[in-house]
């Protein structure tokens, strides 16, 4: 220290680094999470991640709930793509109960899941834009996320915390407006995504900003337990939809985009390409839906009398339906004993549900495998030695969502 500066008392240790609290309530964290950064100038020396600010003990709450009441809890994991979480949960329950769903239900689910994936990737990619200083693209694509939310609204009645679907299928059939809106989305969205790409993908300012920010090698990513777009960006083409197909994903033809270096730009490109793939999957699913004829064309749930509520007209008039109705709502049906793990390719990676049932009416233990929780552990390695502003971009390009991280 030079003479002009304040003289520290004799014997005191000079601290050469600055501590910066990024979060827990910071507009750039996009959620309640804390990073304690140790900065040398603008370079990051070390980071310390703190989680648990919105821990709501979902796994514990679930131990006292019948299966159907756990669905609204899963809404609040990754709230950018709530339908994916809901579907994952229903598929887990169906695996435990041994329910097989009709093909039409599978295809309807695929449509909803891929729409959710598009809306999640859309948010993530445009937020990467916002964090690197490009707000315009974010605003232009938001209308189309809005359209996706309107489709949810037609199906389930809600937009963000959807609580969509039931064990065995959907609560109601898709109406014509929902199909029209899906058609409209398929029609208009490619043009919007193209424009979004025009604004970002080959833009020098954006590329300079993202290339080389927060890279991770395939080996390190696997060691951390990365899945989903973040692992694919590192060069491993692992996709649960292909390696372990659920909900009839084996009937669809799509490719898996992979990156090479695992930096922010790769993650951006992988997510962008996945949106195109999702669009093509929705198109295929819509095509497959037209092939159902007669009574098959109106099927929207499997035959699970123990878990799927009887029709309202029957409940009002028939005794047996009323009894089932009461039994299901009050959660008085004992589940089969056993352990079950089911994972789906959520927007963020492999979202797994591990449920242990002791034959009671609620799960004895339930664990959510949340991909964000795993990504956040690698945060220090990704940001070490980079600039402070990269810390923000890495955070948004990993798509860290506090709700999913803390559960």
């Amino acid at each position, binding site marked *: 220290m030079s003479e002009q500066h304040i003289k520290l008392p004799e014997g005191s240790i000079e601290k050469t680094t600055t501590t910066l609290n990024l979060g827990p309530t910071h507009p750039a964290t996009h959620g309640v999470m804390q990073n304690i950064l140790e900065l040398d100038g603008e370079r990051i020396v070390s980071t310390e991640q703190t989680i648990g600010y919105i821990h709501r003990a979902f796994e514990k709450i679930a131990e006292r709930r019948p299966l159907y009441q756990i669905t609204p809890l899963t809404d609040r994991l990754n709230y950018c793509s709530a339908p994916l979480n809901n579907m994952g949960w229903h598929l887990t329950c169906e695996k435990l109960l041994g329910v097989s769903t009709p093909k039409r239900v599978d295809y309807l689910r695929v449509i909803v899941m891929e729409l959710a994936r598009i809306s999640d990737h859309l948010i993530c990619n445009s937020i990467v834009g916002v964090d690197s200083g490009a707000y315009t693209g974010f605003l232009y694509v938001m209308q189309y996320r809005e359209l996706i939310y309107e489709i949810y609204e037609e199906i389930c009645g*809600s937009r963000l915390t959807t609580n969509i679907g039931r064990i065995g299928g959907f609560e109601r059939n898709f109406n014509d407006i929902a199909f029209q809106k899906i058609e409209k989305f398929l029609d208009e969205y490619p043009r919007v995504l193209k424009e979004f790409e025009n604004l970002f993908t080959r833009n020098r300012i954006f590329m300079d900003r993202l290339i080389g920010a927060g890279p991770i090698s395939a080996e390190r990513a696997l060691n951390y337990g990365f899945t989903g777009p973040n692992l694919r960006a590192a060069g491993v083409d692992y996709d649960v939809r292909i390696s372990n197909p659920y909900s009839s994903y084996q009937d669809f033809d799509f490719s898996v985009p992979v990156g090479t270096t695992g930096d922010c730009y790769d993650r951006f*490109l992988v997510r962008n390409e996945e949106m195109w793939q999702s669009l093509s999957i929705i198109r295929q699913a819509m095509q497959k839906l037209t092939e159902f004829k007669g009574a098959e064309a109106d099927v929207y749930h499997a035959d699970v009398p123990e878990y799927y509520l009887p029709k309202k007209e029957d409940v009002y008039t028939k005794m047996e339906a009323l009894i089932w109705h009461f039994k299901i709502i009050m959660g008085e049906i004992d589940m089969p004993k056993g352990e079950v793990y089911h994972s789906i390719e959520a927007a963020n990676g492999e979202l797994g549900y591990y449920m242990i049932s002791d034959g009671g009416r609620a799960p004895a233990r339930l664990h959510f495998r949340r991909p964000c929780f795993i990504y956040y552990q690698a945060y220090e390695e990704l940001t070490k030695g980079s600039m402070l502003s990269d810390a923000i971009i890495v955070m948004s390009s990993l798509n860290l969502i506090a709700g999913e991280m803390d559960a």
Partner: protein
Amino acid sequence: MQLTNRAKPVDRRPMNAIERLYLWNILKGMMITIRHFFKKKATIQYPEQKRPFSQVFRGLHILNRDEEGRERCTACGLCAVACPAEAITMEAAEREPGEENLYREEKYAARYEINMLRCIFCGYCEEACPKDAIYLSQTFAPANYGRSGFIYKKQDLLIPNPVEDPEGFKKAQGEIARK
């Protein structure tokens, strides 16, 4: 690492000479922005204009009446059991002789409260009701000055009586009929 034969590498070619120009990038961006200038507005003027909700929208709750204006709720408590947020409380009472024009069944809800601060609008109460009594309407939760105002009593939830206010009843029924 190759696990499937469906991998498709993303396009990461280095920038070419034109892409390296800042001016070109700025022009390209500006062109898109200016094009949006002349497009139809995506927003609406909210309090004056309202967007139509879907037929099945899950908004604030209402308690239904039958055509003679009797309350349908029989205080079975199924909605309270189904509620994942534990927002519904009720107290049952027995119908006295002479109250047949007020309550449809022999048992009714003397007190029925929904805490709108707890409610997550999942729609399970509507699904659970075996008496066609509770429905989610197409209105949003309005603002309030205090917390106590968000605890909706039975009188706040009941739809207008068809005997006294046939038009209000019809309007409320119209929202229900779709489901």
